[in-house]
C-alpha cells in the first residue's frame, strides 16, 4: 500500500510532516512506546527497530523515507502470547536492570543474528573470507556495541544472546 508503512503487520498512513522521525511516529503517533528515545542522535541504540529484518536507528530515520517498508518494534516480537525466545532469554539471564535499553538491545540482537547468518563480517572477525563466523563473546560484544546499557547489564545481555544461538549450551 502506498503512502503507508507497515508496523508490526498493520499498514499505517505516513505522517503528513516529513520531519517526523520513525521513532516519534512509533511513540507519539501510534503510542507504541516500547521503542525508547535515549539520545535522539544515534549514539545509544535504545531506538533500534527492524526494517524488513534489518536493524536500524529509528531516531535518525525519517518516517516518510520508509514508505512501503515493514517495521518490527519490540511490540511485534511475541507471537500468540508467547514471548520471542530472546525476550525470554533476557529474563532468564538477567539481561537488564532498569530495562530502558532492553527493547533496543533485543531488536538489535535479532538483526545481528540475521547478519551473522548472512556471513557479514565484524571488526573482530579475523578471517574476512570465512563463510561461517562463530558467535564468540568478542563477536557479540563488538556487534552489539551500538547498544549502550547504563546499568551495565552487559554480562547478562551477552549471555542471553549467546543462549539463543544455534548450538548454544542449554
Amino acid at each position: 500500500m502506498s503512502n503507508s508503512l507497515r508496523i508490526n503487520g498493520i499498514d499505517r498512513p505516513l505522517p503528513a510532516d516529513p520531519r517526523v522521525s520513525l521513532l516519534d511516529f512509533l511513540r507519539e503517533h501510534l503510542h507504541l512506546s516500547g521503542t525508547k528515545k535515549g539520545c535522539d542522535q544515534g549514539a545509544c541504540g535504545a531506538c533500534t527497530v527492524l526494517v524488513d529484518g534489518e536493524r536500524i536507528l529509528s531516531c535518525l530515520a525519517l518516517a516518510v523515507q520508509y514508505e512501503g517498508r515493514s517495521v518490527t518494534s519490540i511490540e511485534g516480537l511475541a507471537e500468540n502470547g508467547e514471548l520471542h525466545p530472546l525476550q525470554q532469554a533476557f529474563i532468564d539471564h538477567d539481561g537488564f536492570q532498569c530495562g530502558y535499553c532492553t527493547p533496543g538491545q533485543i531488536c538489535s540482537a535479532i538483526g545481528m543474528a540475521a547478519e551473522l547468518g548472512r556471513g557479514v563480517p565484524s571488526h573482530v572477525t579475523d578471517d574476512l573470507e570465512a563463510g561461517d563466523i562463530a558467535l564468540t563473546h568478542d563477536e557479540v560484544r563488538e556487534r552489539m556495541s551500538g547498544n549502550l546499557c547504563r546499568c551495565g547489564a552487559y554480562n547478562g545481555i551477552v549471555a542471553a544472546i549467546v543462549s539463543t544461538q544455534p548450538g548454544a549450551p542449554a
Partner: protein
Amino acid sequence: MNPFTYARAASAQDAVRLGAQPGSAYLGGGTNLVDLMRDTPARPDTLVDVTGLPATIEERADGSILVGAAVKNTALAAHPAIRSRFPALSRAIVAGASAQIRNMATVGGNVLQRTRCAYYYDADGADCNKRTPGQGCAAIGGFNRNHAILGASPSCVATHPSDMCVALAAFDAIVHLEGAQGRRSVNLTDLHRLPEDQPERDTLLVPGDLITAIELPPLPFSARSTYRKVRDRASYAFALVSVAAALDLEDGKVRDVRIALGGVAHKPWRARRAEDLLRGGPASADAFRAAAEAELAAAVPLHDNGFKIGLAINTIAAVLGALATRGGKP
C-alpha cells in the same frame, strides 16, 4: 528541525534537477544529515531522497569494481569481492560507527558526511567558522584532543571522520558525479578540501552535484591490504588515528605501496611522502618507521593532540610491518 519538503528522486537526472535548486540537499541514510538538521547546523528547504537510485556492486572485466552510491555500508563491507580483493575497505567500513548505522548509511552519504567537530554542533555555546563563516574557531583554543595535526588552518582544525574514505583514498578510488553540467569524475583524494580560509566547504562539489558511484580501479596487490583504527574505546568511536595500507613486496624490497591516514586531517590523508620514500627500498622495520616519520614531519600539534604524531608514526610502522610479515592478517 526547520520545515522542509521531501522528494524522492526517480533517476540521477531527476535528482540533479531537484538538487540544483537553492536550499536543496540530497538525503541518503540520514545518519549524519538528519542529526545535523535536528541540531540545526543544517537547514535545507528540500530533501531529495536518493536512496532509491542504483545500489549495485559491479565487478568489471578490467578488474575494477563499480559501487553504486546508494549501496549500504554493510553491503559493501560484506561483498565477497571487496573482502577478498580489497580487505582494507571491508575492515575500514566495519571499524566505523555501529551496525545499525552501517545498515542505514549509503556509500555516497559516507563520503559526503560533514568534516566536523563537537564545536560545530554547539550553535549556542561555541564559535565555528564551518557553521558560521568568519565567526572564529572555538576548537583551536579549546579542547582539541581529537583534532587535526596535518593540513589544518587558523580557521578550522576539524577532521573528516570517515573510516571508509581512508581505504578509498589508499586505493585511488574514483568518484563518479552527475551534475547540472553533465557527468564527470574526480579522484577521491581530490574531492575533499583542506580547510584553508573556507572551512564551510568540505568538498569541491557545487550545488546539484550528485555522487552516482565510486569506482575502485584494479590494483594488483590490493589483496595485501589492511586497516587499523586506534580509538579511545574498543568499538563505536571515531579514530584518533587510523591507517589504511597496501603493500607489494619483491625480494625483500617494497615494489609498491599505498598508505592513507584517518583522524589527522580535514580530509582523508594520502601519505604520498611516505610512499615515495618506501618505493624501491627495503621492506624493513627501520624503513617503515623512517617513512612514517617523514610523513609526519609536517604535523603541527594543538594543545591536546600532540600524542597523535607519535601514534600515527607507530601505527603506520606497525601496519606496514604486519603487511610485510603476515599479509595484514591480525
